[in-house]
């Protein structure tokens, strides 16, 4: 995949703790996964997705990780309609 230019708003990912480095006494399903952080910032030098990358964050700090997402966006919404809610508190329109 092509290189992403400096100054692009991206999200990087970093493994903070490998499974063997994790805290003691956590549930087994959690313990077998790595502890991972993602953070967004402006790319400080060109990088390709999946490759090492450095960013400057909104508060000006420089952080390193692996380039995860270019132009990370928020797409959360209201979900699909939940029909079970619709007739609550209505005058009984539901046939």
């Amino acid at each position, binding site marked *: 995949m092509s290189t992403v230019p400096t100054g692009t708003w991206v999200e990087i990912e970093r493994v903070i703790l490998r499974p063997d480095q994790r*805290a003691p006494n956590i*549930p087994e399903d959690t313990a077998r996964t790595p502890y991972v952080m993602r953070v967004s910032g402006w790319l400080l030098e060109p990088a390709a997705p999946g490759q090492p990358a450095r960013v400057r964050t909104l508060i000006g700090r420089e952080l390193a990780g692996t380039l995860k997402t270019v132009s990370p966006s928020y797409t959360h919404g*209201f979900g699909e309609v*939940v029909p079970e809610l619709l007739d609550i*508190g209505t005058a009984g329109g539901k046939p």
Partner: protein
Amino acid sequence: MKRDTSYAAVTARKNEIMKASLGVDFDRYVTSPVAFDYERLMKDTGYTLDDIVRIQRETKVGDTPLFELTRLTEVVRQISPRGKGATILLKDEAANASGSFKARRASISAYEAKKRGYAGVIAATSGNYGAAVASQAAMRGLKCIILQEVYDSQGVGQPEIVEKGRKCEAFGAEVHKLTVGPELFYCLLLALEETMFFNASLYTPFGIKGVETLGTEIAAQVRARYRRDPDVVVITHAGGGNLTGTARGLLAAGADKTRIVACSVDLSGLHMASDRDFNRKSFTTGHTGFGVPFATWPDRVDVPRNAARSLRYMDDYQLVSQGEVFYVTELLAKLEGIERGPAGNTSLTAAVALARTLDRDQVVVVQETEYTGAGKHHNAQLSFARKMGVEVRRGDPRENVPGKAIVIPERLEQVTGHGQSMDKLRESYLKNAAKAHPAKKWTDADKAFLAADVKKDVAWLESRLREL
């Protein structure tokens, strides 16, 4: 010399990191492994209630409306025994900057950080508190880092937490989006050590002092309009700061007969640190996964002693199911014409159930609301739950099984919630205290502290000790 940043090494440096990032020496207040001078810790913040009001007005906090929910009260009265059905009031905390009461909690920390010359503030929270700290930091010209538990190991984000992360970034914060696990605390320590920012922990005396104005405002508003003190104030309970601060404010205003009722969503059976369970709960806070452990042992937090001590002020603790809260959330929109988020609607659900048992001339206050919208909305949560394999249906809410089935009541009569034994919670607190420091070694001063910490006297404590 480069410091050892391993999990064990950093957590071992916890106390020195905390001292540097908070400027409070807790050793000055600690009197034993289980006791400390709580009131002096609170007083030594140096802020009076008047100071706090002034500071909060500078950053769009407080003086929120108190609404009478007339139509909801009316439908509750229709299903109540004769003479029953208290007036339900709602303190619209969504009107604070950042959309929740957490702005109160963040305001004094941000002010203190600025006053003492810190370059920024940090908080580890997946809740509204992150947005509140980010918003207050923005207004004080401070940098801000928020650490959140957002994703499961598949990279699937809890919609409500995704929204809260968005809001933090909208206020200019650097947001660390983490996977599931208690190592959030390790990341907090690392970030504090790296940046030397102020630790805007939820559990400092500054955080709790900031919430006291919520209690004083409620007392003043209810007295002005109804010529009485609130009979009951229902408070959504998780970490305990909301309840502690509000109750302290009510007491400061002289409302010492007001019953303080905690309320949490019952998520029993789900493990809070489980990667699998993480996205099978439809409430990210205000639930028993935090509420019970924090009530029964407050000193499990990111500061040496927790200023949020809920059992010290709590008279009752009601549980409600996810389905009941969703029903009442929908009813709030349809009958009262306002959409609000899950936290306040949790206590609203308990208030609806309680109002049926209270006299008509009594007043029950739901002491917070929060903003809602994409991700936070109950439709978003239910739709997400369905995608995660949770069954969603209408029926008897007693059939709710956290992580498996959300059963939304068919009628208002089915919204009842259920109580918990306060004595069991208090006994659990004593057992935890005994784990921290053997009961045989408790001094008279320890016993006095522990009894006060569960709103009981020493005679009660002695009798429990004999039985335990």
